[in-house]
């Protein structure tokens, strides 16, 4: 407190910079939200930075139920995310437990292989995957969208293995003495003790699958199985320049995830720092 005025000035500058950053981070959302509440005529004729006059919900009515409806894509996306959430968590938990607690020949080699595959980027596998799926007749099907990531990711296995190794062995031994098999130990001892890391992984899966674009773009054609990101992109290219409609679509596409984030933001911000997700 000896250098009171200087510290006060420092705090003032800190807040000023943080505030400027916050404005920069939020402005595109707020401005596009305002645009989505305007009539197309107003955006075309008046200056961009004006309040909607009159305020209108017609753009939202159009992207929700009207002729440009995004609802089917929303339903597909929810289905995809739910199926992948269950598939990825179950498969990763099983594999991670095997790596963490069981002894079998080739374990170290296999785990090294898992670590190495984490270096393979998605862009590299999309062309061959497309070829494989086209041959198998899986183009433009639900399973075509989910299969490549249904069985978990090497990263999830790695993360869970690290965690499972920290679960006290005594508890598992006790359960074993009581006659529990591996699956029951997993269900009644390991999983309940790993709730935080599983929740983290669940959040990661939901966010990355909700936002996934490249694979659904390639493997689907037409409106039946397009996901929300693909549908939004198609809407934009089809109605290029119709920004009141497109901003309603983008706002709608982001809203569920932003709501989820605001609900569980502590978990997300903490889990990012711990896991380095993506």
């Amino acid at each position, binding site marked *: 407190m000896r250098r009171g005025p200087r510290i006060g000035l420092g705090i003032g500058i800190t807040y000023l910079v943080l505030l400027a950053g916050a404005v920069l981070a939020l402005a595109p959302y707020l401005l596009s939200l305002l*645009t989505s509440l305007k009539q197309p005529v107003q955006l075309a004729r008046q200056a961009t*930075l004006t309040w909607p006059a009159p305020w209108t919900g017609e753009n939202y009515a159009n992207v929700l139920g009207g002729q440009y409806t995004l609802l089917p894509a929303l339903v597909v996306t929810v289905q995809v995310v739910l199926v992948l959430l269950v598939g990825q968590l179950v498969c990763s938990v099983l594999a991670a437990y095997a790596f963490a607690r069981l002894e079998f020949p080739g374990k170290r080699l296999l785990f090294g292989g898992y670590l190495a595959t984490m270096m393979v980027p998605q862009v590299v596998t999309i*062309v061959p995957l497309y070829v494989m799926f086209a041959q198998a007749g899986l183009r433009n099907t639900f399973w075509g969208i989910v299969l490549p990531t249904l069985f978990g990711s090497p990263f999830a296995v790695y993360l869970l293995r690290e965690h499972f190794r920290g679960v006290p062995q005594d508890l598992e031994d006790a359960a074993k003495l009581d006659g529990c098999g591996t699956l029951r130990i997993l269900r009644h001892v390991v999983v309940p003790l790993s709730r935080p890391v599983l929740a983290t992984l669940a959040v990661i899966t939901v966010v990355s699958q909700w936002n996934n674009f490249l694979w659904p773009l390639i493997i689907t054609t037409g409106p039946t199985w397009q996901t929300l990101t693909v549908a939004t992109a198609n809407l934009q290219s089809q109605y290029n320049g119709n920004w009141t409609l497109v901003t309603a679509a983008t706002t709608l596409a982001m809203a569920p995830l932003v709501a989820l984030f605001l609900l569980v933001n502590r978990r997300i911000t903490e889990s990012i720092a711990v896991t380095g997700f993506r």
Partner: protein
Amino acid sequence: MLALAPRAWHVDDVRTTRRRRETLTGFTLLAPSLVGTVVFLLVPVAVALWLSFQRWDLVSPARWAGLANYAAVLTDAGIRHSFAVTILFTLLVIPTQTVLGLGVAVLLARRLPGSGFFRVVYVVPWICAPLVVGLVWRWMFDPSTGALNAIVGTRVEWLSSHTLALPAVAFVTVWTQVGYVALFFLAGLAGIPPQLSDAARVDGAGPWRVFRSITLPLLRPTTSFVLITGVISSFQVFDTVYAMTEGGPGGATSVVAYEIYSEAFTALRMGRAAAIAVVLLVILVALTLLQRWWFGRRTTYEVSA
């Protein structure tokens, strides 16, 4: 135990069956994940390798092409350009987002009231789909009805300008990533014991000196992580480009991932697309190993809080 001792052979027998059962359980638990990894990760890499030696348009049968596709990667102007664009994009994005992320983290680490709010706000851009964020910014940059020109006051053709398009895409990428990068630095800063900087301050070091000689070296593991993951993801950027510019104008933003996409699904040259993908894979693995080696070589400091 005592009762079992005279019948040691029996214990051995039990042990081998137990080991056998454990092996069986292990592989059973591993099976789904292992099958998934092999079929949807390793086999595709092998297929990409095979494809990269073929000439194939998905319609007529594939034909052996020898090294022609790799020769094209080296000589084709468009493909070479896409690598140059990607490198330029990376050079624009990585230093900017790292410095800004560190700056934001230092400010947030002062733990002033309201820091939690700012932390949430800064991460919002990153939680949204890059494709959707790209579309929002495509509107922001729109020359006639976009918000940016309304703020600037003149008509600038941001995304159809050869010189401005790539910086614009890079700017949006930085905009989405800064909060995310800051979270890592924030975690890194929290791991530095305050006694160290206190001691330096007692020795007469100013704030800048403390930052440079204490904070930065101790942050090296975080910095290396942020740089490695940043470069890897920046070499794969696709969604933002697709949403904002579709590779244009005139290929100015056609990054490698976009080039792979358009070779494969617009030009229907599967072999060429696969060859670019294989080259990209080699570059990314080499970069990862190189960066690990570079940061491992320098002294790292173990600090336990």
